[in-house]
């Protein structure tokens, strides 16, 4: 994601007269906007368009907004701003349970909403790309996703672009099991990795980074679910 590329906002609100206004303000600020009016529609568009941020009314028909938020977060750590008519209830929801990035109480100023969108994007993009160093480590493996470099014990390792992406994603979620679908979703933005080839990519990646690819210490198979990157013990 570059600074200049148009960001996509998924706007989920069942009141079209509010949605129209927010959509136009966002478009005027060069955002792309996709809209859903209920929970199931929101999930579908979320998967199809991979938005950079979600504006979510928590009071939705079809599926509670809280459930929509939980499902989106289980797929991808996307910034989410809640729109709510119940500010009294939302502190708890935002802070403790769901981890939304911000919320705006109704009635709101659309300018204010756009300002929050920009501010949350600035904050979360900083979170993704620490200013001082882009290097992350697990065990003896160091990866720099901007420079596109991988080193093991200081020695440079050559990976294919797909192997690099898989390693990058796994290393961003150390200790967390990623399902095959989650991995495919994150690795295969261009649709170039398919379910049946994921295992082969993993095997090839292990051959490059594991001291003993036969008994992996970094990329652990979670049977029936997916894969997990761990700190080697």
């Amino acid at each position, binding site marked *: 994601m570059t600074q200049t590329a148009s960001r996509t906002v998924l706007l989920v609100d069942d009141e079209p007269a509010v949605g129209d*206004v927010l959509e*136009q303000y966002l478009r*005027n600020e060069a955002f792309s906007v996709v809209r859903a009016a209920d929970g199931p529609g929101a999930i579908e568009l979320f998967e199809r368009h991979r938005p950079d941020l979600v504006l979510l009314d928590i009071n939705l028909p079809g599926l509670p907004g809280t459930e929509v938020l939980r499902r989106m977060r289980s797929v991808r750590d996307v910034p989410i701003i809640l729109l709510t*008519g119940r500010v009294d209830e939302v502190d708890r929801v935002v802070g403790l349970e769901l981890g939304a990035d911000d919320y705006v109480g109704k009635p*709101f100023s*659309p300018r204010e909403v756009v300002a929050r969108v920009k501010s949350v994007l600035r904050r979360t993009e900083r979170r993704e790309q620490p200013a001082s160093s882009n290097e992350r480590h697990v065990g003896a493996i160091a990866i720099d996703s901007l420079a596109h470099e991988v080193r093991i014990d200081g020695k440079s390792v050559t990976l294919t672009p797909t192997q690099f992406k898989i390693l990058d994603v796994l290393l961003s979620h150390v200790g967390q099991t990623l399902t095959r679908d989650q991995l495919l979703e994150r690795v295969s933005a261009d649709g170039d990795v398919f379910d049946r080839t994921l295992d082969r990519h993993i095997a090839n990646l292990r051959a490059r980074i594991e001291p003993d690819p036969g008994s992996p210490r970094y990329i652990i198979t979670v049977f029936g679910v997916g894969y997990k990157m761990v700190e080697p013990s």
Partner: protein
Amino acid sequence: MSSLVHEIRNQLAVAVANVEAFRDGVLEPTPARLTAVLNALHQVDILLREIPRGEPQR
């Protein structure tokens, strides 16, 4: 009571967002949009009448 307040805020959101958009020149105040704002304000009026007398106001 809380869902009544919630619905009032929803209707106010329609009115506030649209009027602000008209002021900022972001949306044209077409007859359809002006009607939507007016309807929202009528709804607020109707909802306010449903608030029981003697209930502490928030």
